[in-house]
């Protein structure tokens, strides 16, 4: 399925990230005996892969499990089920010391540039600490030099290394976060809505910086966002998530020109067009996202779908390939 699309882009190469049947259920515990009374099906069977130098945009509304995917892929959360292969190594089987060592291959950029930096450490120490922990820098001078290089790369001044996070603006703080993610020379960077907390003008700067760095270091990104316009700019492929599952997966162009899943259609109709003369019919979805504790029967989207049919309520659709490299999870397509 997914592999078929990638066979054309990078034949025979192991993808940087390959996720198969990933599930993350959070048990709900009650009472003094901590009985499990239910589960939050945050991520319920997600598969995708990312090749070297590619960006997969993961979109969906709040609570659909996209951030959980990001955290589980890094094993910051333990997956309930499924396989996560980074550079061909299944990280779900690694023990703690091995995983700690392996973390240099995969890093994360957080959404909130304020709470993601330790307020008591200087910017230089925040970045330099990773080098120290992984024994990359042999001396204090080497560490300083490497941090200074990273500061150059992300567009911060070297003199700012001794400043504390509160002395920076939001965009600059996010650059520190990017420098930290780059410090270990990772292959894969997960961006958990890395620009959604920034001003629109700064968003563009940070996205362009991320794209430049991708070029330079052959990075692969898993880019999580709820804003399709942002994802359109940076992604090669896009996966749309709804209630813990991927409902549509394809390359960027196809997704924007011929979206197949009704949910994707609704999302796309919400993207503003920078031309007031163009009128477009907006698809406004009714209701809220159903609770991931008790997902709807059949197709998860049937409660809000404008084209809902009888079979959608009982029969669960599977993610099928409807065109080469284009997968949709819907009975009607």
């Amino acid at each position: 399925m997914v592999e078929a699309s990638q066979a054309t882009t990078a034949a025979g190469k192991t993808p940087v990230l390959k996720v198969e049947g990933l599930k993350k259920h959070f048990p709900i515990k009650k009472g003094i005996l901590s009985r499990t009374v239910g589960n939050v099906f945050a991520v319920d069977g997600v598969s995708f892969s990312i090749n070297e130098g590619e960006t997969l945009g993961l979109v969906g509304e709040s609570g659909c499990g996209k951030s959980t995917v990001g955290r589980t892929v890094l094993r910051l959360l333990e997956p309930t089920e499924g396989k996560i292969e980074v550079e061909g190594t299944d990280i779900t089987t690694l023990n703690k010391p091995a995983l700690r060592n392996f973390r240099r291959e995969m890093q994360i950029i957080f959404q909130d540039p304020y709470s993601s930096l330790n307020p008591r450490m200087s910017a230089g120490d925040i970045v330099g600490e990773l080098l120290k922990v992984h024994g990359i820098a042999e001396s204090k001078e080497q560490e300083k030099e490497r941090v200074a290089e990273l500061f150059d790369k992300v567009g911060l001044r070297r003199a700012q290394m001794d400043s504390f996070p509160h002395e920076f603006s939001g965009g600059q703080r996010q650059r520190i976060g990017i420098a930290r993610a780059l410090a270990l020379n990772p292959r894969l960077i997960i961006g958990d809505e890395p620009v959604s907390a920034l001003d629109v003008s700064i968003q563009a700067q940070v996205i362009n910086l991320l794209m430049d760095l991708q070029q330079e270091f052959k990075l692969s990104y898993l880019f999580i966002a709820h804003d399709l316009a942002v994802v359109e700019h940076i992604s090669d492929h896009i996966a749309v998530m709804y209630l813990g599952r991927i409902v549509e997966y394809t390359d960027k162009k196809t997704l924007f020109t011929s979206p197949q899943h009704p949910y994707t259609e609704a999302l796309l109709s919400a993207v503003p067009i920078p031309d007031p003369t163009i009128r477009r019919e907006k698809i406004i979805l009714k209701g809220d996202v159903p609770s991931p504790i008790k997902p709807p029967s059949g197709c998860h989207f049937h409660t809000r779908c404008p084209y809902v049919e009888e079979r959608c309520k009982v029969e669960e659709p599977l993610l099928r390939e409807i065109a080469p490299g284009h997968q949709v999870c819907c009975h009607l397509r």
Partner: protein
Amino acid sequence: MTDIDQQAELAKAGANIDGRWDAIVHFAKNFPLACFGITIVIMFVLMAIFADVIAVHDPVQTDSNLSLAAPSMTNIMGADMMGRDMFARIVHGSRISLVVGISSTLLGGIIGVVIGLMSGYLLGWFDLIMQRIIDIMQALPLLVLALVMAASLGPSLENTILAISIPLVPRVARVVRSSTLALREMPFVEAARAAGMTELRVAFRHVLPNTLAPLIVLGTAQLGSAILVEASLSFLGLGVPEPHPSWGRMLSENAAEYARVAPWLVIFPGLAISVVVFGTNLLGDALRDILDPRQRS
């Protein structure tokens, strides 16, 4: 670097441009109360260190001629019933107060920090058991707990320190635990984990420094109250035994019998305790501000 960078550096260093003295003046203008507190505490520490030089008289030397002598040129704070020079006794008493205050706060603080950090970080059964023990300890007031400890251990300097430090543990542990609970969910802690740091490093390098602000205030407040508790224990005859001069005991021995005939015997030890406790509290607030990078100008 460029000129602008250098200027920014200099501006950041604040008054350091014109040397250290200016920096001190700058600090004094910003935190006048803090300076006052620091001065008191420094004087107190110097007094303890140079007690032998400052006090000309021997604090334990009795002289029946001087019994209950009023303050004069030779005995500026008078003398007690046994004719021991009050000034010498107060100066030497600062040693006891300092040793008891600092070591009990440190001992209690360190144990409390370790328990609180582990409790908040590990959670689970360790947290459950620790918190119940702390509940029991917190049900008793500081002084009562110290009293029980001192009574069962017997009066000596070491036991007094131990008796005062144990009741500090639950307070410190609670404060550290509650901050830890909030901090462990912060993205920067998650980032440290994602960077492949060991849990121990995450706990001590990323969580602990951020619990510091409330801890320092608590610690210095405890430094003051440790001195008070020592005074109270000595007042009840359970503190540091004779012949060591202790402010609390000086107050207790003299208060009942001589408060009317020789009020200087009560006023001076009382004043010494009040001033030092006041100074440590001011120092605590100052330290909290100085150690917080956000407060630095």
